[in-house]
Each structure stands twice: as C-alpha cells, then as structure tokens.
C-alpha cells in the first residue's frame, strides 16, 4: 500500500515536472533540427555574468589550443569543450570561498604556468617583462649620448664663411618680411 502510494506520488510529481518542462518547451518552441545549431547550451547563471569571475577567467588560458583566455573562449568558440569545463572549475573553486589568487595558484599547480595568460612576475619571467623596457631605456641613453657627441662635434667645427647671397638687398628684405609674416 505504502509502495503503491509512493509510486502514485512519484508519478504525480513526475507528471507535474514533465508538464512544466513541456510547457516551457512549448513556450520556447522546438527547432526543426537542433544539431544544426551546434553544441546545446546550458542556461546562463548569475555566476556566468559575475564580473569578478570574468576578470579571473581573463587571466587564465583555455587549454584547447586557441590561445584565448577561458572567458573569451567560452563566449566565442562554442564548439570548445575545454572552456566550459574550465569555467565550471573556476566556479567550483570560487564557490568554495577561494580568492582569485588562490584559484590562480590552483590552476598553476594543476596545469603549470601555461595556464596563465601572462607569466607570473618572478624568476626568469622577469626578463620577459623588463628586458624590453631596459633595452629601450639603454637605447635612449645611448641615443642621447650620441646626439650630444654629434652636437658637440658640430659646434667644434669652425663655421664656414657664408657665401655672399645671390639675392639683392631688396629681395632679402622682402624675404625677411615674408618670413616674419609667416611666423606671426
């Protein structure tokens, strides 16, 4: 009897649930061939739109080989099977109360430094960050030094006497007048 009641209750709940789903489906309308629309998607949750999650995912690389971060890949390459899984991993870790840095550390521990969109600023990676800046500063210093030397050399060279102008004094005066007017 209890079994029968339980079964009845079960079927009742199942029918109600099926009805609800069917109602939703009817409201949404079933498309002719879902396969054509690519991989089925899960409904978007509040966490998917959480700015902190998005910022965190933009620092982590998708491992599908696309070269994009997890956020960009999961919202761009809808055929990728890696980025949704990695997104779920980020959600799980943040759901456990872990900070952004702890999540990143966990990803690095699991997938290596390759999991980051930019290498951490330590050890040999510092060369990656600072060599371009140092090279430019060094080149700028060399350039200033060379320019100073050139200007000194130019000043050291005795000024060659200016050849007499071909223009008449009247023409020169007119030239000066034009130049002054242009500079005004």
């Amino acid at each position: 009897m209890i079994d029968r009641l339980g079964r009845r209750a079960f079927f009742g709940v199942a029918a109600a649930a099926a009805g609800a789903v069917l109602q939703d489906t009817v409201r949404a309308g079933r498309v002719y061939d879902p396969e054509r629309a690519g991989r089925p998607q899960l409904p978007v949750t509040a966490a998917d739109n959480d700015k902190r999650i998005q910022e965190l995912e933009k620092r982590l690389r998708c491992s599908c080989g696309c070269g994009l971060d997890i956020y960009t890949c999961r919202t761009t390459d809808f055929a990728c099977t890696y980025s949704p899984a990695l997104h779920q991993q980020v959600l799980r870790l943040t759901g456990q109360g872990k900070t952004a840095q702890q999540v990143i550390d966990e990803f690095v521990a699991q997938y290596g430094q390759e999991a980051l969109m930019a290498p951490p600023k330590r050890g040999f990676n510092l060369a990656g960050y600072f060599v371009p800046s140092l090279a430019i500063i060094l080149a700028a210093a060399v350039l200033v030094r060379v320019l100073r030397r050139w200007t000194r050399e130019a000043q050291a060279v005795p000024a060659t006497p200016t050849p007499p102008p071909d223009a008449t004094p009247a023409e020169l005066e007119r030239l000066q007048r034009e130049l002054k007017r242009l500079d005004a």
Partner: protein
Amino acid sequence: MALLGHLSLWLAFLVGLWGAITGFVGGIQNRADLQQSARNATFALFAALLVAVISLEISIFRHDFSLEYVAAYTSRNLPTFYLWSALYAGQKGSLLFWATVLSLFAMLVQIMTGGRHRVYLPFVAAVTCTVATFFITVMLFAANPFERLTFMPLDGRGMNPQLQNPGMVFHPPMLYLGYISITIPFAFAIAALLSKRLDSDWLVAIRKWTLVSWLFLSIGLLIGMWWAYVELGWGGYWAWDPVENAALLPWLVMTAFLHSVMVQEKRGMLKKWNLALIIGAWLLSIFGTFITRSGVIASVHSFTQSSVGYYFLVFLVLASVLSFALYTSRLPLLEAEATLESMVSREASFLFNNLLLIGIAFSVLWGTLFPILSEAIKGTKITVGPPFFNQVNIPLGLALLAMTGIGPLIAWRRASIPNLKRQFAVPLTSGIFTLLILLVAGVRDVGALMAISIGGFVFGTVVQEFARGARARHRQYGESTPYAVVQLLARNRRRYGGYIVHVAIVMLFVAFAGMAFKTETEATLRPGESAELKGRDGHVYTFTHLGISQYNALNRQVTAALIDVRRDGKAFGRLRTEKRQHVDALGNPTFQPSTEVGIMSGLRVDLYVVLAGLVNGTEQAVFRFTINPLVWWVWFGGFVLVIGGLIVLWPGGGPVAVRGSKGPGSQAGYAVKLEPVP
C-alpha cells in the same frame, strides 16, 4: 592542367636561377648582355608563374579533386567568390601566390625604374629572382600545390567556414602584397651596397616602393582586424596573436624608415640606420612567414605544421648573415654628410620617434619569442598573451602618439625657445582642453584619458599646420581657406598627406581607448523575452529575442536568431545572428558549426550580438550582448590612413629634394615666391 602547372614551376625555378646568376654577375662585371638577360628573366619568371597560377585556378574551378590542394580547400558547393580565394587559403597555394606576386613586382620594378636608378636594376633583378627561386624551391620540394592524390574523392573537404568571409578574400592578398613588396626596397638596398653607389639616390628609388609596401601592409592589417571583429565573434579586433604580431613587426620598422628617411633626404644623415631598417624590415617579413608556416609558435592563424618551416629558417639565417656581412663591409662608405646641430631639432625628434617604433617592435618580438626562450632555457611552458603585451606596449604607444604631435612642431636643425613656445601653444591647449572635457564627462580610466588627451594634442598640431599653411597661401595668393587647404595637399603631398596619416593614427588610438568602456552580458532568452544592457554612451539598450528560424543555403544549414533592439524604450533596429553548419555537396557536415555575429555599427557604439547556442533544442537561446564603444572609428581611421598614404604616394606634388644628388636639401617650411621688386 596540373601537369602544365607543375612544369611551369620547374621552368620558373630554372628561369629564377638564371636571373639570379646573370643579375649578380652582370652587375658585378658590368656586362650589358647579362644585365639584359637578368631583366628578361624577371619577365619570363612572371610568365611561368602566372601559367602555374592559372593552372591551379582552372583545377580549382573544375573541381579537380585528384589534386590534394583542391580536395583539401574546396568543395563542389563552395561559392564561386571563395573558389578564387582558395588559391591562397592553404600553405601550398599561398606560396605559389607569394612567388607570383613577387615576380610581378620584380617585373614592374624593371619596367618602371628609369633614369639614374637603372644602374641598380641588375642587382635588383638578381635579388628578386633569388627570393622567388627560394619560394619555388619550397614548393617543388616540400609543398607542391600540384601534388596528386592516389584516389579521386567525390567531393573536397571545403574551405574553413571562418575563411568564407569577404574580409578573408581581401585580407591575405593585401597582407601578402605588403610582405612581398618589401623585397623591392630590400633589393635596392642590397643593390646599393653591392654597387657601392651609396649616395642618396637609392633612397629616391625605394621610398615609394617602401610606401607601397607600408600601405598594402596597413590595408592588410586593417582588413584582418575587421575580419577578426565580424567573423571570430570575440568582440575585439586585435589579440596579440603571434601571427598578428609577425605582420605588425615589419609595419613598425617601415614606419620608422619612412620617418628617418626624411632626415637622410634633407640632411644626408642616418644612412647606416636607414639601410639597417630596410634590411631589418625585409628579414622580419621572412621571419613572419617562418612563424606562420612552421608551426613553431602556436597560433590560430598558423598553417598546418610542415617541413616548410625548416626551409624558411635556413633561408632566414642565410639571408641575415649575408645581408649584414655586406652591410658591415660597406659601413665606411655610409658616413653622414652633416652633423646634428641641436638636441632640440626635427632630426633628433625623428630619432626618438624611431627609438619608440623600434622599441615597440622589439617588445612585440620579445613577447612573441619569449615562450620559446622560456621553454628552451628553463624548460617551462608559458603563455604570453594580451595582458603582457598591453602592459609593455600601451605606455610606449602613448609616448609614440605624443611624438606624432611633437615632431612636426620642432624646426629642422635647431629650435629656439620662442619658436617652441609659439609652436606648442595651440596643440598643448587643445590637449589640455580635451582632458578637461573628459574629466567633466566623468571619464576616469587613466589609459583612455591619456590616449584621448594626447590625441587632442596631436590633432591640434595637425590643425595648426594646415591653418598656417592655408593662411600663408591666402596671404600670398588670395585663395579661400578650403581652396588653400586643397592646394596645400596638392602641392606638398608628402607633408600634408603625412599629417592626414597622423590624424588617422589619432582616430585609431582614440578608438582603441574606447575598448576600455566595453560592456557585455550573457543571457538566456525565450522568444519574447528581453535583456537590458546599459552602454557607456548613457543609453539603455533592450534586446528582445524574436525567434529562431532554420533554413538551407548553398553550402550550409543556417540557424538564425532575430533580435529586436530598443534604445531607451524606442525602436532602434533589428539584429540577426546565426549558427552555420557547413555541409558538402552530399549534405554531410564538414566543419564544426560556426557563428555569425550580428552587428549594428554606429559612431558612438557598436551593438554586437552572438548566438551561443540553443537550450534543449528549443528556441530558448543563449546570447552574448556586447556594447563596443568607438569601434566604427577604427575602420574610419583606417580609411583615412589609407587616403593619407595614397596622397603621399601619388606621383608629383612637389620635388623630393635629396641631399647629395640634385641641388641642395630643402628646408622644411613654406615656399615663398619672391615677386620682382618694382
């Protein structure tokens, strides 16, 4: 057809070899017969390669799937528009396209170069034939586009859906034209070094070719950005992908050259530097090709990994060693004709501009190669992505933008304090005024504030230059201001066309800064449901999902979502975004479903909608809605840049004064016509 194409390749190989040998020997021994033979070889080379291209195209249009290349990149139902572009959709075909365009340039340079520059032509023929022969060698021994399959498939694999976009029809050829045409200035530089004719004549011969190359590369990069934006669906246009970086490197170096060449033309300085820049730009173009084709660095753009990379690596190393050995041996002949008179001069500002351009090029190259370096030295695999490049390059880019405004304000030779005050007053006011407007408008993003304010400063510089020039013409000739501006452009195309390019650069930087204000959201919507998103333009946009439709097109099955857009509650338009499942002629799916973005473009913002997919096979769909500010200005800025470049390039428009060749170097400034004194 395939046999004819294959034979043409062998013929081109032999002709290329002949052209290279006769060009070098004829040039060195000054033998007119060999020089003429080298010249003829460039014509024959082009003819042979053109036959190969036509053979491959006929095979593609006839659906000759016995050819591996045709089967790999086309299908029976591929639209005709894309059948043509299949020529360069894959590694082998693009090598053929590259060699053919190079041979076309090699021939054109022989026809179009006249007068005193003809002395360089045998060496130019030799260098271009050598490079073309290298590409033909790669095709013949590692990547033959005429390779046959052992069986005949019923249909081909088809073209990657992402390549089936108008942007992809024009982007690769433009980029290739840019890459390939760098060979011509490089060939002239090598010719000048070999012939020891190192006065400034060679500069005149190559400046326009460098500009042609720069222009094509600019167009290629811009169309590539547009394609990435409309096709890839991530909402941006530049991702610092290694292949994008590889295309940017020669562009940066050529931009540096186009500035520093002015110092050589006007003052006879920087000869060594300019030669090094041209050689460097060409080597970087080969380096870019090596990266794209070797698979040494992971990139979404890369062709399939193949042995082709080794050929390019060997060629790159050999070319670098030989070029710089020749360059070093000629250094004593490259002494400057003048010295720098002041640190505060146009010459010095050009050098700092060059420092920044080359600095950016170096940091991009360093970031691109650092993962390889890290793995080789530390054994650690790392990723160097946009956060790294943005951190390193944004400050340098802002400094470069500032130099774009500073350079034209400083006089040649020596600038006095009163002159500097007078020159900087208006542009600085313009920059500060822009900053204040932004602050009042509530903009607080430091990067955007700096980019747009410096943009205001540069724009002030350009307006001041045009205004002064127009005023001078008005005083002298009584021309109206609009007519005077047109006359300025017509009579000094290099200078004022260059300023238009500077305005374009400002537009581009402002547009780049706009991306700091991007807003986006994801939403799951049933038909009739809406999502709201507030843009930084102050408007609230409501996106209502109207429904899903499915239908068949020529080579694809389409699932389309229609979105109604309202701005602040008022009707604003409709967007359509699609999922496309490409199929072969038998209706079988070929690639993974691709996404077509819905874009509504405006002066202030772009509305960008992507259909991610459907929930449970129903019309309930997942969307990503993005509001991208100022993207329209990237394309318009690019258009203005091309117009500016074309004005600079257009023949005539004032003589190019070259120090050391014909007459004295001209001073920057306004031409003053001296009327006879009554």
